[in-house]
């Protein structure tokens, strides 16, 4: 029994029954399949998180975001500028307590190099209702290329706890059809 020492003192010499062995082999192969599915997706899949990251001082990241905002602001909402950077350009998004800055307006089916960083705490970039979720850390500038393939008004919700105002940290993101 499982609560007593093995009945056969040489238990390691006992053969494993074919049913058990068969299952072990199936489970092992399934593990390999799942492993290589991840690897394979890097070559054929369109959703792979970029590895491009730089160490950055929060103030200098903020300065880059401000420079971009100054150039491309088209209007403002509740005091936060809405920027419409040209397709293919570098877009900066600051996560800080408790807002996203600035608000982005992107064109459908165009690619952007999105730079993400946080000012003081960790934040979570959660694009809804698309449901893309990326962690943002202070001191790290993460650069990824995104291609919005739907137009409309989306929400960026913070999904990493960042203090008692965390629940107010949400901002729109606009994707417009090419005019």
């Amino acid at each position, binding site marked *: 029994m499982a609560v007593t020492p093995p009945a056969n003192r040489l238990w390691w010499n006992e053969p494993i029954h074919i049913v058990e062995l068969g*299952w*072990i082999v199936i489970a092992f192969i399934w593990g390999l399949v799942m492993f290589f599915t991840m690897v394979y997706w890097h070559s054929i899949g*369109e959703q792979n998180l970029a590895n491009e990251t730089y160490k950055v001082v929060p103030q200098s990241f903020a300065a880059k975001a401000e420079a971009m905002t100054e150039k491309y602001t088209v209007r403002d909402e509740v005091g936060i500028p809405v920027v419409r950077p040209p397709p293919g350009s570098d877009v900066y998004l600051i996560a800080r307590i408790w807002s996203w800055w600035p608000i982005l307006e992107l064109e459908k089916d165009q690619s952007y190099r999105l730079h993400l960083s946080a000012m003081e705490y960790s934040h979570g970039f959660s694009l809804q209702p698309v449901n*893309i979720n990326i*962690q943002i850390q202070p001191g*790290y500038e993460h650069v990824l290329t995104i291609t919005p393939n739907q137009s409309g008004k989306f929400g960026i919700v913070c999904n990493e*706890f960042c203090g008692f105002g965390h629940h107010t940290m949400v901002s729109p993101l606009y994707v417009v059809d090419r005019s």
Partner: protein
Amino acid sequence: MAATTQFRTCPTTGLKIDLAAQSLIKANAVAAVVFLAIGGLFGLSIALTRWPEIHLLPVDWFYMALTAHGLDVLLCWIIFFEVAVLYFASAVLLNCRLAAPRTAWVAFVLMVVGAALTNVTVLQGESSVMFTSYTPLRAAPNFYLGLIIFAVGALVACGNFFGTLVIAKEERTYEGSVPLVTFGALTAAIIAVFTLASGAVILIPTWLWSLGYINHIDPVMYKLVWWAMGHSSQQINVSAHVAVWYAVAAILLGAKPLSEKASRLAFLLYIFFLQLASAHHLLVEPGISSEWKIFNTSYAMYLAVLGSMIHALTVPGTIEAAQRKLGFNKGMFEWLRKAPWGNPAFSGVFLSLVMFGFLGGISGVVLGTEQINLIMHNTLYVPGHFHATVVTGTTLTFMAVTYLILPLILQRDVMFPRMAQWQPYVFGLGAAGISLFMMGAGTLGVPRRHWDVTFADSPFGFEFPSAAFMMLALNGLSAILAATGGLMYVVNVVASVFFGKKTADKPMKVAVPVSTSGQPAAVGAYGSAGSLNIPGTITLVTIFFVSFVLYYYVNWKYLAEVWPLR
């Protein structure tokens, strides 16, 4: 020392039980139950706050309760109980004295002091940093100090377990190899040492940082090392509760492992590979390469998952084989239909086995897939997943085995047997609901650790689909059900321990008496010698495997539909 050790002989099993070990098992189990009660209450209040129509707690209380909930149930309840399991699997099962009872009491006191210190610090309100306390969020220094003291205590308890194994071997209190259950407990203890050491590596500098002696803790490095504790500690749970599954099947049904070799190999795979799981929390983190993520998140090609999948066959397989030997041989499932469903130890373990596998196991692998994590990270899917593993898996199993520990070790009759009969079903159903509905809300994008997903206080707001709010309401209802089941457990245990009738000095009705007196059973009575007749289990495992494969690829399909990013 050995000469002064006092034993009693268990009338049911014939085992010699060290009275010091017995008192320690009692103390640790009772402490565990107290923390379960406190932590469970916090859990209920959180679920009721997430239910938008009720929205019970104010914002500061919510995050405080969330921090305390994680601490009390994930850490205190489970580790205290695991210490009890370790003492049981060493001293009791090996017929041996506990290595150093006095040190074991010191460990217990350290753990109580540490847990209390951290709890009090959290309740003072300045340390609502969540259980994970990600830097640069800063808690009061005593928050970390309490955890460190607790971890030291737990480490000392593990030391006692190892010491007991050594003594049992030297004093030849058993023959041959240690029982499979002890082997599983040993797995848990080895992983615990790794876990607690990782905890020390990260919590000590973080404590010094909160005191102002260190000025920077890198947030990604913090997560990497913290989760070497945080996730690996869940693997202690897995090893411990799988060991308990084997133990309960053996004690109630006389079940034998199908193959000692396969089951032990499965535990060995846990020791080698489970520690890599820290990566599960870093899949959408900046600054870490995809190669590292893929290798680590898959436990080096899913070798630890392989361990669990082996147990998924061997645990129900041992139960089926034992039941068939007892004569339940008709058709494919008579063994299961006529299993002792009225015995809470059995029903709890079997429910736990099914739900851990189907809800917790499958969702865990999917969530831990590098790219799929993009559509799940930090949503409610995550707590949905780990409530399936930790609540329907570990907690339900520990509850179930309590109904055996009460009469066999603590020598008390269960005070309210009818309530005990219903308890695993009520709690299991509630916990399954919590898991499923949180996972459901998570797939709709609802974030975890969020006080108000209606965004009423925000200048912009965002509207989640109404189905998400329905999920949150159902989650609240399930939490009420689970809390009811939890209360039924706590009341029954506390009443039985302190006011229950002493068990009569006669054997309890368990299927087959446990005996380590050393008569070797007929070698390979079934199972390992080639008469493995378990068609029911094969059917169940096939259903499991098909669900696993389908659910896995359905999620790849969901992923393929979101915005391209690279």
